């Protein structure tokens, strides 16, 4: 390790971290924005879900580098290309959780809401979605962490992120730079994850200590956005 390199390259490191954070967080947020309506529709009309799930499984299997490349003719070597790709992967993680979350609301609760005179829309916004928050946010956490980590691959098509430290470190055979990149990507992912946990706690004050339950990673097993 050459600690002095870190001190003398502070602005560069800071800028790359910021760019990496922007790519990852924006993609996860866009993924959530697209997943919510689609997931709510899939939870309501059951026939809609199986075909969506098939498409998701296929999209999920596509390596990110291949998807970047497929988007280059339309969007060029820009951050848009990277964000669209990572949004697609985020969607694949979040959407099943939206469906599981909304479907997982106990029937007694929805019936009570109906009996109190809630219409379908108000019931959805005021009762079902709040109760689905823990499951939806679990998906958002996975998507955020994976997007932040995957954003570094965008450097291969020239989109700036902490991946720059990997590429540059390899070309100069300079491990310090690579270590800094690795540590910062992981730290960035961890910080965003902790922020999301705090958000979940704020949104669901009725869940006393939810993380004490036996950790189930994802409904139906654990699959993963790929590099």
């Amino acid at each position, binding site marked *: 390790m050459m600690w002095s390199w870190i001190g003398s390259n502070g602005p560069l490191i800071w800028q790359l971290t910021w760019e990496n954070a922007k790519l990852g967080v924006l993609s996860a947020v866009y993924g959530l924005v697209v997943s919510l309506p689609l997931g709510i529709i899939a939870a309501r009309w059951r026939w809609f879900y199986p075909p969506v799930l098939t498409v998701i499984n296929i999209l999920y299997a596509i390596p990110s580098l291949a998807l970047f490349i497929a988007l280059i003719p339309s969007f060029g070597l820009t951050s848009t290309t990277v964000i669209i790709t990572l949004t697609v992967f985020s969607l694949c993680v979040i959407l099943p959780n939206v469906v599981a979350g909304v479907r997982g609301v106990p029937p007694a609760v929805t019936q009570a809401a109906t009996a109190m005179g809630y219409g379908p829309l108000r019931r959805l916004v005021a009762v079902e979605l709040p109760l689905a928050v823990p499951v939806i946010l679990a998906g958002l956490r996975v998507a955020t962490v994976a997007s932040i980590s995957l954003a570094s691959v965008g450097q291969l098509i020239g989109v700036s992120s902490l991946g720059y430290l990997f590429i540059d470190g390899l070309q100069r055979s300079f491990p310090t730079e690579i270590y800094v990149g690795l540590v910062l990507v992981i730290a960035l992912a961890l910080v965003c994850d902790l922020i999301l946990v705090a958000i979940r706690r704020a949104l669901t004050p009725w869940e006393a200590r939810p993380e004490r339950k036996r950790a189930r990673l994802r409904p139906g097993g654990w699959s993963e*956005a790929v590099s």
Partner: protein
Amino acid sequence: MSFFNWAWDWVTTDANWHGSGSIPQQLVAHLGYSALPLLIAALIGIPVGVAIGHTGRAAVAVVNIANAWRAIPTLGLLVLLAVYLGFSPLTWLLPLVVLAIPPILVNAYEGVAGVDPSIKDAARGMGMTPWQQVARVEVPNAMPLILVGLRTAAIFVVATATIAAYIGLGGLGRFIIDGLASDQYGPVAGGALLVVLLAVAVLALFAVLSRLLVPAGLRGQRRPE
């Protein structure tokens, strides 16, 4: 021209199918580079995951490993090893194996730990030894999730082997990395298309495997939600 035009033109160019570094050669290389780490990871991940699921020990550690796994940028790990080891088999094999283990292990654990307790009790009540309980009851019941884990790991390995072309590995990623380096979009698009087709083939393979390996009594069941 769109991505598919570029990719199609390149893939259907006859010259790309012959000689050294041709499409068939790199495809076979890619399969080899993917199969070996996957096999090693399965030989480690499945027994350990099943053991943890059966005994219930170290479950918290497993979940934490799974969460940390997502945050590790594979490109960074690959270049770090490349700087230290140069281009040796360990450079690409080590990260692929290490990173393919978590999905396999965690799903094997989840599968075995999630077997209906009444089924486990019935197996014990029938006088099965612990080994028989694991081999005849718990593993077959966990098979759907074990396959999900293997599929996730396989998809991950195929994708990462593509990126490993950047540090000099052969395979389909060569077309992409070399094409990017020489500003030729044809091989880049063609290579990407082949990688996508390979990923879809992996999905299809696992769909077939689950028909073959999942016990008839578990098939056609809704996935637990």
